[in-house]
């Protein structure tokens, strides 16, 4: 069956990691400017468009794409399907890194970075954002707690504290695993609640009181495709075995989950009658068609075929479509659909915003590489092919 | 650079014009003696000693007099009222004061920015052909009250109870005057058409370093009086050109002047 996770022994410095490093430096420079001359110096945010891609992509999409962490934990640990444990560790690592960067992105985006602790003491229970903040705050902690055994396996001998924590956690880990799933369900949906408060400012293609449900179901749906994508990228770039024996059954579950999301999404659109603007050729309707067509319907149909689920290349393509579809959904809800009633110019992300976003993604990739190199995360065996 | 120079010069002239018009007159004829010219700030048209505007004291007192508030008003159609007043023979001759100072604590609702208006009561009445109802639109319900009462008898503080909505005195004055001026297409409708701006103590406002450069002084004046500076640039003081009969070597030069060679630009 599966193999025990082990560190990967491949040379760390490759052209790939160097590119990542360059992107990280560019983002760092942007951040220096942001903390010297303010948000206006690096972003196109203004009084009409207070939220841009840092919220729409870095935060909302980041959270959605980290859903692999809790969905695999649910399957392997709660449902007792240990067969899938091979992918829990990489999914956990992606989630931990992803959420850490969500938290960092938020702290860059909010003007008063130093005040980020304030919601802990000044609480507004009516605010969906408050709930998201609390959940993310706790969930980041839970994720890294869940990651302690991985660290302890490697560093336990050097750092006695880790070994001690690992031993203590052994009995209580189930609490954190369940807590992780519960917290995820809470804030994945609440992220969708955020713009429910602004019915007049969100395009009717996306605005529905059921946004939280759509966010939650799409997070369920994107979890396993995300695992497929990241595992395939990792195994192919590190020249490891493909782990298709795990990914194929995961994609079968995805058929159901994505189907539920698809039915809710399209059903909601039809029931509200908002489909009437679908073919008006505006940027918004195009974005919606791409999101649902290429990101939900077509990959769902593709996944119905066994041949797709068993082909590494096709499965990767399909999973990538779903992942990009959900990403686009978050971007659409927070950026494309946002209509500022008094704005004179539309919002386009500034170069600074793009640099920071790309830099954050690069950092995640970079750190992922650092962790799989030094810690037992990946279980896949080396391919017996020549280097 | 050039605009800066122009600005500096403009203000120098402006100040000469505004502040010390007397200096011009005091300039001695171009004689041979080398005595330095003495600056004079003497007022050439001084107010006669002890002079005040006619009935000024009385008008100020009148303006601050408290009137008992008229609660109930007899509502009446305007044409009927006009007719009635005419039949009663009320008109121009009944005016007690030729002018009124429109001032009251009820008008001073925010930090005072303008001086009170000197309202020419007789003049307005005359130009309205004695139609008192044009402004005195209602009368008190009390039959013993006079037919026309002053504005502030009815309009004092703003009253917002829906049954007896009564606009405040300040709004009553403004709306009565401005709406009528607009309708008649006569009389000013902007602020300074009726008010003089309240004179401001410049000691508080002017912010200058210890030993200011002339340019700094100019810039400081222009900070508030930009328009005055712009206007100056369009006046003959700035644009004059022609011979300068009293200036040595320039007596026949027709191209002299601030508008051309910028001669005499200080």
């Amino acid at each position, binding site marked *: 069956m599966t193999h025990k996770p082990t560190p990967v022994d491949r040379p760390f410095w490759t052209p790939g990691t160097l590119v990542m490093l360059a992107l990280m430096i560019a983002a760092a420079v942007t951040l220096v400017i*942001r*903390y*010297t*001359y*303010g948000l206006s110096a690096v972003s196109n*945010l203004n*009084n009409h468009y*207070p939220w841009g891609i840092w919220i729409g992509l870095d935060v909302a999409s980041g959270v959605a794409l980290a859903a692999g962490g809790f969905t695999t934990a649910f399957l392997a640990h*709660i*449902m*007792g*399907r*240990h067969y899938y444990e091979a992918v829990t560790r990489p999914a956990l690592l992606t989630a931990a890194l992803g959420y850490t960067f969500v938290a960092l992105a938020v702290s860059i*985006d*909010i*003007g*008063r970075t*130093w*005040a980020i602790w*304030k*919601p802990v003491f*000044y*609480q*507004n*229970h*009516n*605010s*969906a*954002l408050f709930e998201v*903040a609390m959940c993310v705050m706790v969930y980041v902690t839970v994720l890294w707690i869940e990651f302690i055994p991985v660290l302890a396996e490697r560093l336990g001998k050097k750092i006695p504290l880790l070994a001690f924590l690992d031993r203590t956690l052994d009995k209580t880990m189930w609490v954190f695993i369940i*807590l992780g*799933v519960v*917290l995820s*369900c809470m804030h994945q949906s609440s992220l969708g*609640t955020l713009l429910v*408060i*602004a*019915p*007049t*400012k969100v395009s009717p293609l996306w605005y529905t*009181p059921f946004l*939280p*449900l759509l966010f939650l179901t799409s997070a*369920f749906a994107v979890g396993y495709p995300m695992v497929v994508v990241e595992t395939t990228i990792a195994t192919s770039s590190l020249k490891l075995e493909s782990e298709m024996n795990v990914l194929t059954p995961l994609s079968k*579950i995805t058929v159901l989950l994505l189907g539920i999301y698809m039915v809710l999404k399209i059903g909601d659109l039809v029931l509200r009658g908002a489909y009437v603007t679908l073919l008006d050729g505006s940027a918004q309707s195009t974005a919606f068609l791409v999101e649902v067509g290429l990101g939900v319907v077509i990959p769902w149909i593709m996944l119905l075929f066994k041949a797709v689920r068993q082909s590494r290349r096709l499965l990767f393509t399909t999973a990538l479509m779903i992942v990009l579809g959900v990403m686009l959904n978050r971007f659409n809800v927070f950026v494309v659909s*946002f209509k500022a*009633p*008094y704005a004179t110019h539309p919002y386009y992300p500034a170069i600074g915003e793009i640099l920071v976003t790309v830099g954050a993604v690069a950092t995640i990739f970079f750190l992922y590489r650092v962790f799989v190199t030094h810690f037992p995360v990946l279980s896949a065996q080396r391919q017996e092919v020549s280097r | 650079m050039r605009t800066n120079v122009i600005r500096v010069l403009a203000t120098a002239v402006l100040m000469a014009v505004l502040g010390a018009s007397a200096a011009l007159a005091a300039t001695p004829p171009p004689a041979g003696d080398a005595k330095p010219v003495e600056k004079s700030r003497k007022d050439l048209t001084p107010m006669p000693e002890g002079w005040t505007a006619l009935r000024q004291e009385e008008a100020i007192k009148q303006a601050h007099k408290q009137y008992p508030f008229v609660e109930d008003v007899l509502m009446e159609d305007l044409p009927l009222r006009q007719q009635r007043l005419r039949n009663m023979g009320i008109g121009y001759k009944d005016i007690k004061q030729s002018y009124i100072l429109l001032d009251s604590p009820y008008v001073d609702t*925010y930090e005072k920015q303008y001086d009170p208006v000197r309202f020419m009561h007789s003049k307005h009445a005359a130009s309205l052909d004695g139609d008192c109802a044009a402004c005195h639109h209602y009368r008190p319900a009390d039959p013993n009250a006079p037919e026309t009462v002053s504005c502030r008898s009815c309009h004092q503080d*703003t009253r*917002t*109870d829906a*049954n007896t909505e009564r*606009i405040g005195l300040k*709004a009553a004055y*403004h*709306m009565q005057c401005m709406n009528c001026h607009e*309708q008649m297409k006569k009389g000013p409708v902007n*602020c300074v058409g009726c008010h003089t701006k309240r004179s401001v103590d410049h000691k508080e406002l002017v912010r200058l370093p210890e030993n200011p450069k002339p340019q700094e002084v100019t810039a400081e004046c222009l900070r508030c009086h*930009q328009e005055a500076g712009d206007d100056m640039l369009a006046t003959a003081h700035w644009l004059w050109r022609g011979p300068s009969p009293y200036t040595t070597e320039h007596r026949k030069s027709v191209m002299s002047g601030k508008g051309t060679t910028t001669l005499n630009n200080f």
Partner: protein
Amino acid sequence: MKLTRRGFLGAVGAAGVAAAAPNNAQAWQSKAPPDPYGCLVDLTRCIGCRKCEQACNEVNRLPEPAVRFDDLTVLDAKRRPDHDTFTVINRYYPGRLDDRAKPAPTFVKVQCMHCQDPACVSACITGALTKEDNGAVHYDVGKCIGCRYCMAACPFEIPAYEYHDPITPRVRKCTFCFERISKEGGKPGCASICPVEAITFGRRNELLLLAKKRIENDPGKYVDRVYGEKEVGGTSWLYVSNVDFEKVGFQKLPEQPMPGITETIQSSLFSYLWSPLALFGVLGAVMGLTGRKEENHDA
């Protein structure tokens, strides 16, 4: 596979509670203060003198404006309040003609509407924004983290932000002259300076009656609508006009208070954290069950 499906259906079912929430939105209670202050703006009276802008600037100690307040040439640019201007007057030509057959201008004052159930207050993550009993939507910079959710939530697009400030940007908007109106007889700066009483300050309930009385007394002049009476559940600032509101920069807005749906979702799902606790219990039970099964299986 079966178990997996059932488990996920359970989780989806929990989400279904969220779906059911909007249906019992009538359970939501407005938190509007019973007798707030308000201002009635009469667009037929405003003469566009910009004195209110000046008073606002002075009262709130805002920086000197780029264009002086006696310069009326800026009226035609459709300005919006920003971080150092809490109110602006804009001039519209909605098509009405004056007696000289020239287009007659309508001047519109723009500032925070001080909603009765403000979206910004409900959205604010730390409660830095609050709806006070006197009607003011009050901002406490000490609690603000600068997340700008209030700006995204505001249907009137009012809160502005100090984007140029790298460390301590503030959200800026009309304060309703909170300190002035807290004093007996105090009025907001704009209302007290207005030369024609286009802004009438008073109790909102009274102003509403007053507005209706004005419309009733002159139905030929006024449009039969008080803007702010019902919009987004009512606002402390009210407007009456002689031209269609939509023609002079006002939006058509729903009558439901903006926070209704989200607050219903939040409170029905998370009061006493019942749903997370329930989900925790269910998942714990499932985990225990599958774990035991496996042990049996192994044995």
